[in-house]
């Protein structure tokens, strides 16, 4: 029961954060909403037994990536986005409604179909760092190394892009 409770609390928090992200005009507010979403998701991960993922979610997403966003927003001193203007009709008329409809439809279908299904057991911590490391450094070693190369390239790309040209 307590798990249902926690799931719904954090789920509602996440959805509220996501909706707030859309509703807010100021990027800083949107960013903070996103941090709320991420925090809630970290809690959901804990519910799912993925403690390591949860804390990494906080450290990497909330602690690094979002900091970067906020830093850029502050650096560029981005203000509120102006109302209306030359916005894309396609996006508004088709994409947005379609996506909302799909999201709700999908959610409904999933809940409907899986409600009676097996559920996620709680308590056992599947995602201990040791187990994750077992996976990461044995079967997934190559992808792991490849992502490290990716990160290296991303660093160089970011440096090149953001550097002021003399």
């Amino acid at each position, binding site marked *: 029961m307590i798990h249902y409770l926690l799931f719904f609390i954090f789920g509602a928090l996440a959805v509220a954060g996501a909706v707030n992200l859309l509703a807010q005009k100021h990027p800083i507010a949107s960013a903070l909403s996103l*941090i709320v979403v991420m925090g809630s998701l970290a809690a959901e991960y804990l519910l799912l037994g993925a*403690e390591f993922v949860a*804390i*990494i979610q906080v450290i990497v997403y*909330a*602690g*690094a990536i979002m*900091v970067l966003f*906020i*830093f850029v927003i502050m650096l560029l001193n981005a203000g509120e986005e102006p109302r209306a203007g030359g916005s894309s009709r396609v996006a508004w008329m088709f994409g947005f409604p379609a996506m909302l409809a799909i999201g709700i439809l999908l959610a409904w279908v999933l809940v409907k179909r899986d409600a009676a299904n097996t559920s996620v057991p709680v308590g056992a911590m599947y995602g201990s760092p040791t187990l994750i490391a077992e996976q990461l450094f044995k079967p997934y070693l190559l992808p792991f190394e490849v992502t490290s190369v990716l990160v290296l390239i991303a660093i160089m790309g970011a440096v090149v892009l953001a550097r002021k040209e003399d």
Partner: protein
Amino acid sequence: MPNLSPITVFLLVALAKTVIALGLLLTSVAYLTWFERKLVGRIQNRWGPSRVGPFGLLQPLADGLKFIFKEDITPPYVNKPLYLAAPLIALALALTSIAVIPFSPPVHLGGLQTALQVTDVNIGLLIILGITSIGLYGIALAGWASNSKYSLLGALRGSAQMVSYEVALGLSLVGVLILARSFSLQEIVTAQHGLRWGWLPNWNILTGCQLVAFLIYICAAFAETNRIPFDLPEAETELVAGYHTEYSSMKFAMFFMAEYANMFTVACLASILFFGGWTGPIFGFGPYSWQAGLLHVFWFALRIFFFLFLYVWIRGTLPRFRYDQLMSFCWKVLLPLSIANILVTALVVALRS
């Protein structure tokens, strides 16, 4: 307590431990300010606080009263919600860290066996790192919400500096983690228990050869807590008071307390990770008696005191970095060093096993 259900007992004990830990922490923070002023005074060849109470011991109390009664100014044109939220975020997160710090091994206390630690999580170290990384928002939002140039500059400096040093900080700890094979702080301490060759304490910094890691950690931790010589986000001579320029009264006090609480956490962590935590010689008590527990706490407190002393000592000694020096120091010195440290440690451990 036979008539209570286990969950109630658990909750009661947790509550008690939380209250005690928080009280201790806040008291320590208060007296840390006194200690700092006194010591810096000595270093600068003056008395420091000495009027309020014996040796000025009541000075923190007076400061607290002063903060409470001061006028609380909210400047115009600030982003009100964030302006108010920022110090709360900073303080709350700073105080949270204490929850996973172990002060002693498990002890028997009136039929209960519990460690003198709010909670032992098996990813304790990661939680502290996570909290530290989130704590950044306090500074960033404070600077941005204040709608002031100095604050904004301070916040920008703070975000960049903390994000950068967090990398070096995290990597410097990997060596210790390799040695302890756990994220749990309790286990990290246990791994350092005992003596090598009968006389050398089994501390990471000694037998674990983590001296380099320790130096990196200390540098990075100083930067994380925005202390001299890395106090650029709040450099008085450059930015008035940096991100908290526009704050006053209790809101300013919250930032202040958050900073000192963070110092305290750093000191705890340094002791746990490199200096054996609560380990130390036990004189004549059983391994799980409450007296032994207190003795552990004492050994631990000694170490914490040493690191706090170090903080103040350095503050009184060193000048401030230039910002570009700060950044290149992090990326060009600390980061490669910490990676080298990881490599060497991993190699040694791999060869030894």
